[in-house]
């Protein structure tokens, strides 16, 4: 297929994002620059990027965007970063309790302009989970003296699109894991349960639910391509799975295991029992067979590597049940008592269907049997 001859404005959503993903962020943006520019109508796309209970890793990851890099992406896509705590020039300044200066110098005044609708809030990106505790106050995370959840609520009301980035903002992630006392949750999910902070029925001004781009951290391509789709007016065409992940990056019928660089060892039954041996990591706890993401074909950090290729079992960080449902990380799936929230049918279809030999098939059968008991 000659991608360059496509009229992207006429593509159905499945094809559109498949084309975008297949071309890679750089080619896609480069090829359709004219359409992008047309869609922009010479105005910037304002992004407000809020950070709650986060580690900043998704922002760091976005800065790792390869081709285009983050500056190129921002320039070519006409992105104006109206608020981003880690990058912006401004900070919040209060003198005797009053906000001072202008929105050019005071971050809280800058944010206020978007929260009141004075400036259009085109895309709200949420990084980090949203604390509800203690006592429903949200005071476990505050920014500028306000509970973070209030900021999310106000911005979500104004935003044309909302993108949650990383495991924490999507499904709650580590701050919402077992043992948490903070009431942290994702923007529209808590693990696999729909609802989260904004509620199951929330839709942004463009009529979409929160687009979830999980993983710890999220891959920069996933965000760049999602933003590009939104900016060229194709945000509504992003096909989402039942956890509101774009299916093009997180295919429901495909797991990392299928294209794992160590897949050959699995097929030969060479399953390591010690680390740094170089073969299949199934017995060492790899969760790639239950993790839906294109890590193995896209690879990470300008495609130099991925977790399993570096000898590390996949820890399933793209799944809504991460970390509780995919841990203990270093215990093989057949040895785990539960695999919380995982679509067992999918495991069976993918792993058994693909595996001709080895302990793998046996292990999956055990999981399925346990589940049926």
């Amino acid at each position, binding site marked *: 297929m000659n991608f360059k001859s496509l009229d992207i404005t006429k593509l159905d959503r499945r094809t559109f994002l498949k084309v975008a993903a297949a071309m890679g962020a750089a080619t896609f943006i480069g090829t359709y620059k004219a359409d992008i520019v047309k869609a922009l109508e010479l105005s910037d796309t304002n992004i407000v990027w809020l950070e709650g209970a986060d580690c900043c890793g998704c922002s760091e990851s976005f800065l790792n965007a390869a081709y285009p890099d983050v*500056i190129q992406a921002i320039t070519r896509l006409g992105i104006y970063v109206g608020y981003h705590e880690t990058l912006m020039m401004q900070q919040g*300044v*209060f003198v005797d309790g009053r906000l001072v*200066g202008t929105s050019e110098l005071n971050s809280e005044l800058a944010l206020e302009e978007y929260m009141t609708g004075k400036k259009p809030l085109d895309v709200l990106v949420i990084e980090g989970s949203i604390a509800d505790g*203690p006592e429903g106050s949200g005071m476990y995370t*505050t920014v500028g003296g306000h509970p973070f959840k209030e900021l999310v609520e106000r911005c979500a009301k104004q935003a044309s699109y909302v993108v949650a980035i990383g495991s924490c903002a999507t499904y709650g992630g580590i*701050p919402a894991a077992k043992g948490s006392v903070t009431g942290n949750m994702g923007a529209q999910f808590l693990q696999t349960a729909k609802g989260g902070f904004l509620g199951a029925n929330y839709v942004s001004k463009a009529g979409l639910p929160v687009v979830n781009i999980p993983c710890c951290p999220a891959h920069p391509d996933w965000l760049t391509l999602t933003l590009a789709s939104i900016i060229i007016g194709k945000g509504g065409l992003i096909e989402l799975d039942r956890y509101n992940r774009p299916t093009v990056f997180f295919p429901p019928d495909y797991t990392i295991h299928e294209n794992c660089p160590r897949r050959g060892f699995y097929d030969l039954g060479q399953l390591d029992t010690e*680390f*740094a041996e170089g073969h299949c990591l199934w017995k060492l706890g790899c969760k790639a067979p239950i993790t839906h993401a294109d890590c193995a074909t896209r690879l990470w950090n300008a495609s130099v590597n991925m977790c399993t290729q570096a000898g590390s079992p996949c820890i399933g960080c793209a799944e809504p049940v991460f970390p509780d449902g995919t841990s203990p990380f270093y215990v093989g799936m057949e040895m785990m008592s539960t695999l919380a929230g995982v679509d067992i049918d999918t495991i069976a279809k993918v792993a058994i269907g693909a595996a001709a030999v080895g302990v793998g098939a046996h292990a999956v059968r055990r999981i399925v049997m346990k589940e049926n008991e």
Partner: protein
Amino acid sequence: MTIVVVDPLTRIEGHLRLTAEVSDGVITNAHSSGTMYRGLEQILKGRDPRDASRITQRICGVCPTCHAIASVSVLDDAFGITGSIPKDALVVRNILQGLNAIASHATHIWVLWLPDLTHPIYKTILETVNLKSVWDEFVGRFAPISYSIEGKAVPPGSSYLAAIPEKKALHEAEAILGGKMPHQMATIVGGVTCTPTIGDIGKIASYYVRVMEFVNHYALGLDALFGITDPLEVADAWLGLTHDVSKDKAVENLLGILGGLPTDDFSREAGWSDVALLAAFGSELIGETLLGLPASLKLDMIGGYPADPTKIGFLSYGWYYAIKEGYDPTSTKGERFITSGFTSGDLKYENFNHLNVTEHVAHSFYTSGNDLRPWNGETEPVKKAADIKYDDPTAKYSWLKAPRYKGIPCEVGPLSRMINAKEPLVMGLVEAFLKNGYSPANVYTRMLARAQEIIILARELKKWVLVDLDPNGKFYTHADLSMAKDSKGVGLWEGPRGALGHWIVTDENSKIKSYQLVVPSTWNLSPRDANGKLGPTELGLVGSKVGPIGNVLSTLGAIPLSKEVENPTAIFHVGRSYDPCLACAVHTIDKGTNKKYELRLL
């Protein structure tokens, strides 16, 4: 008295609120509040201890690798195998950490800290002292993205734009061994999971070369100064002048470089690298007194401490394993590449012992015990919304605990590491400031120490990659869960931002019973302790002039104090200095002679 609150202090990782009481333009009291609680210590309870290394590195996406290594160190100890971790596994851990440390330092310097110098108030000030051309360099090099001044868009600066791809390149290099970044995956109890090949070593080396091209051209300017263009030569050349000589000579060499630069052309091509610009114009002592420049930003006048060893110390747990099989989990003096140590506020060194670390919670939002060692540590947060408030400093006012070493608040980070290691350039500068009546630790020395550490790490990194790493070596020693039954361990390491300790206690099922972390920012940004002692940032703010006009011009002239507190640059600079930093600099020479120096080496 005026109350100035900066919240959020942006361009740092995380959520921080700094409160200052200001009288006559001087900060008279200060409070530092962490405003987010995630409760990772509780989340870790009952889990497989091996999972801690994956979970704890997610504390910070800017410097995840240090947590991953502190965590596998705590496990190596709890599993009883610190003595048998293979040499090449330790080399890989060093390489992962070295790459992340340089990336983290570079991000802090160019992306997070330097944009502060493009605050429009500096335009006014620098024009007043006839240094508009210096302002032009600041804004042309250090302006951040999506920035505008008086409604006019300011394009991102040249150094800013050049630094981001280098940070990215360092992450790519780390991913070659670690799988991905942030949150690499290769560190594990017993060693590492990866088995580097000759090809991997070659790829990392090629990344190293391109990063050193940036360091040379943008940071140090050895190309413009001395015609040095070989990236592999950069670290050796710079350290030959500033690190491999006596501390007097190190400072003398730096003054020589700065003193030889033209004062009518501040361009990069004229030799004014980013480091040179900041080394000269950042300090009153160096820039004005010793080099005779007409003005400086006086970063050496803010963020300092009183010379009182009961109020402040400088702590380092020791960083980077020695190149041999096994290591000492208690990190005794000289055991690590950058040594552990405790140096008092009046600069007296003593050996470090982790059992001297305790944490206070008197002003922290916790109800658990006070002054506990981490092995006995508790983390029980307040559970009532009404108990979480930031405007009453007599009560609890921060989510950070207050760690103390023998009861003393400590600065941690590059400056503390360089002081404990007696690094010649930093030590020379520290002593020069002390001798001339300045606080030896200040915003300026803090920044210089971090820049210098990049180069020190860069030289060692080259050796780890090209000499020490044996692709045919051993990368893992057996560790199974039963070895962690009823055990405990300590993981002592350093992050880019300073001393980092993880402590674990396991139960009879080898599960985590207690996991406590004392992280660098907790040291640097701690609130008061039970004895009312201020945390380092709080102490560093007190006595600083709050705004740039009073600090730089030493007079407010006709400007009302109300305008000055609206741009409280001291809070920005001091707060951010514990994390990011820049430059490089100098130390005392004969006042007034302003003499030029012959540079032996180059």
